[in-house]
């Protein structure tokens, strides 16, 4: 089974070109940290309430990416809030996307291609070797959004990470997403981790907006 991080990064791969896509690149860093926290929660390594995050088991998961983040969290016991940890891991610039892509290549789902554009610029692509896992992720997302039934825990988490990454537009047409906006917001609000990811992204975007010089 893929991790939440791998599923959301896989969703970002264009199945035709192998390029990586996101409509909100500035938000993706925080959202990917959220995906790792969901993986740690599913592995029963951490738990959260409305504000705080607790490490409940420091033993390794076997995933280098998750264990790296878990070890970092174990070293800084003074940080207890979900929000602070999302920002702390994001600032450390752990290459979560790169680690997830490497794992997907090892699992035979993607392959790595490097080429040059204009003889100078390196271009990396990740064409699909097996497109079934991505189709499964898209199908689960579509069902979670379009249905009125309570989704599985993993699908709730997936919606709430794919949404801030701006990836839902690759799953459903914009009209359908607009019609289901209330449902998407409800699913994103269910988990503390995704609520805090949304708050961090919102603050980041406000700060970016304030720092852009206005031309009158």
């Amino acid at each position, binding site marked *: 089974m893929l991790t939440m991080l791998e599923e959301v990064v896989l969703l970002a791969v264009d199945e035709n070109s192998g390029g990586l896509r996101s409509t909100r690149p500035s938000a993706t860093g925080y959202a990917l940290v959220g995906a790792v926290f969901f993986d740690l929660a599913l592995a029963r390594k951490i738990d959260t*309430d*409305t504000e705080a995050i607790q490490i*409940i088991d420091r033993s390794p998961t076997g995933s280098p990416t998750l264990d790296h983040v878990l070890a970092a969290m174990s070293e800084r016991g003074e940080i207890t809030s979900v929000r602070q940890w999302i920002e702390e891991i994001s600032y450390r610039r752990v290459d979560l996307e790169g680690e997830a892509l490497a794992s997907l290549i090892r699992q035979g789902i993607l392959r790595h291609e490097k080429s040059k554009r204009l003889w100078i610029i390196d271009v990396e692509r990740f064409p699909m070797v097996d497109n079934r896992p991505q189709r499964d992720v898209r199908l689960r997302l579509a069902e979670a959004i379009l249905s009125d039934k*309570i989704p599985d825990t993993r699908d709730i988490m997936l919606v709430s990470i794919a949404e801030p990454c701006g990836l839902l537009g690759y799953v459903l047409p914009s009209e359908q997403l607009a019609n289901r906006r209330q449902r998407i917001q409800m699913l994103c609000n269910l988990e503390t981790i995704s609520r805090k990811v949304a708050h961090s992204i919102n603050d980041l975007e406000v700060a970016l907006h304030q720092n852009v010089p206005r031309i009158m």
Partner: protein
Amino acid sequence: MGLGLRARIVETIGMHLEISGGVCRHTTEKAEANLIQVTEETRNGWRVVTLTGRADSEGADALEIALKSAVEGNDRVVADFKGVNYISSAGLRSVLQAARAAQTRGTEFAVCGLTEFVRKVFDTSGLNQLLHIHGELPC
């Protein structure tokens, strides 16, 4: 689910299942005061699952198994939270997945007796939009 299978599942997560006088009681081996404890009884057509302690990561599996098991064997189930003083995200997921199982089977599922802290968590997460919440037992 047959009782034998149910008991075996419970054994795999280190819990005991006792049944006496129509009341079913689950306790974990580490029967500490802060772990979730579950008792069940039938009242006026409702299966009442009474919860006591902390609904956190440590008790989340026990909580989910107990609620899903009740949902699978009954047409009306209410989870009474009046003895629950803390619920974490793991505990919330367990309740939500039990509600999902109820929806799939067509079982009427409700929660009641939320303490102030638990109600705040349900409200913050919007779980109150997905669950039937009563102040007191509906039976």
